């Protein structure tokens, strides 16, 4: 599967549009939510789990193990810690902030 120029341009388009979208997505955030937002976004950046999965499969061909395969395996573990730990810890923080805020009074 060779990468064509048009596929590359499509990828770059995606990259640029997603960056603009990211800039617009976050506008005003109350300080209370700075840490949870950072932590939640951080969990999403663990998306490299997808890359690690793909490479762990490609690099462990047959029964032979390769150096590259082990890099991918370590990447998979680290990315999973990032994803699972990130969402879990964000959830815990948000439960503490929002869960006990009874009876509204919300701005």
């Amino acid at each position, binding site marked *: 599967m060779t990468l064509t120029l048009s596929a590359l341009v499509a990828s770059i388009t995606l990259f640029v549009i997603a960056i603009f979208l*990211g800039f617009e*997505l976050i506008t005003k955030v*109350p300080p209370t939510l*700075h840490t949870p937002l950072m932590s939640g*976004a951080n*969990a999403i950046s663990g998306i490299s*789990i997808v890359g690690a*999965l793909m490479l762990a499969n490609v690099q462990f061909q047959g029964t032979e193990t390769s150096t590259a395969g082990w890099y991918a395996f370590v990447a998979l573990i680290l990315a999973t810690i990032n994803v699972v730990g990130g969402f879990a810890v964000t959830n815990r923080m948000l439960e503490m902030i929002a869960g006990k805020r009874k009876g509204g009074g919300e701005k």
Partner: protein
Amino acid sequence: MSPAIFDIGYLVSASLFIFGLKRLGHPRTAPQGNQLGAAGMLVAVITTVLLIALGGEGLHGIPWLMTGGVVIGSGIGLLIATRVQMTQMPEMVALLNGLGGAASALVALAEVTGRVQENHMPTSAVELSTVWIAIGLSALVGWSTLTGSLVAMAKLAGGISIFGRWIDTPSWGPPWLNQAKAGLTGAVLFLILLTMIFPTNMFLVWMIVILSCVLGVILVLPIGGADMPVVVSLLNSMSGLAAAFTGFILNNSVLIVAGSLVGASGLILTIIMCKAMNRDLYDVLFKSFGGGGGKQKLTRTKVGSDPDEVAMILEGAQNVIVVPGYGMAVSQCQHAVREFAEILREKYGTEVSYAIHPVAGRMPGHMNVLLAEASVPYEQQIEMDEINSQFATCDAVLVIGANDTTNPVARSGEGPLAGMPILDVEAAPAIIIVKRSLSVGYAGVDNDLFYLDKTMMLFGDGKDQMSALNQALKEA
């Protein structure tokens, strides 16, 4: 099966990330936002596994190893996420962030190593330059995010323990360091160009890895501890970017979209946080904290008070403001603080509110989380701009483990705290400060507030002093 079907899975996943991030920014919808993000991740993982199994490549190799990786990672992730103390939350975010950066960088390393080992070089010039530039950039951003996050983590903790010996994290920033950062970045970019000419040369790749690691360390090392939240947020943005670059390596849409979303929104959040602290991002990154970062020597003394005296001052108070800081987090006395407020309310009908400085603690929102844990209603936690005018009209202020955020010297325009907005505690008619000693805060500056005649110091551990004070109040 056509690969286009899997792209739809990635599209769903990317949409979930977008909605998730959007909702994380509003108090009411934040928990749902987090769940949407997690759902997006699940969709992305399932789609990838299906793509591998059905979409041409086939699940060859060792599926149990992949399963094993996910199980081990989930186990460790869940364990630390549930065990971590709320006080250590900032360090936790920094650590997770570093791991994310490392994962992206390792994916890049695995790709280049695998291609070189199997002599599987791209056939077209477009593919070669795209893949090799992306591998280089992913390594640069990923490895420096890892080492930078680890330094930030050590700085947030104040030091690290190596073989049982506690070593304080140094703040070291000679004037030439900015040139060194620029030089290193330039060197890495040049190495990336070289890898395109010599794509099979692994020495160049390892040079990129090493230089990027050094870059991450010297990027964070000179930055003062009070600015660490901003740095962690910036590193978060960088780890997103690293993931986006791995998307270019693997030609995978969801990696590109999710990575650049986090990269951009992380940068915006960094700027928002800088504004809340009245700091400029450029100053944070490139102007190191006052020279050697030496702490001021104390020359003055102050006689401590005892809880009974303080209880007398509080008699009949109608309006009391509590100013919590990192000390409250360390001594875990938020429950005692809430009890203090309850006793006052029952005895004198006192109205107690909590003044939250945007950077109190080690991370924005740190105090809100702790107070929420102690069931303090959200409406009583008031942000700085709103409460500052009320200090002059209240009866007393209780400062619990806060220092720099109340230091009037910030207004003088000199020293490390210059220009930082502070809580106007000075204006209050009576000030009670619970603190271990007169020692300086994170910024290393003495606090005039301690020496005022209207200030009463309760020296000691926050929890001990608060329970003693609560006892004295009950008996008064």
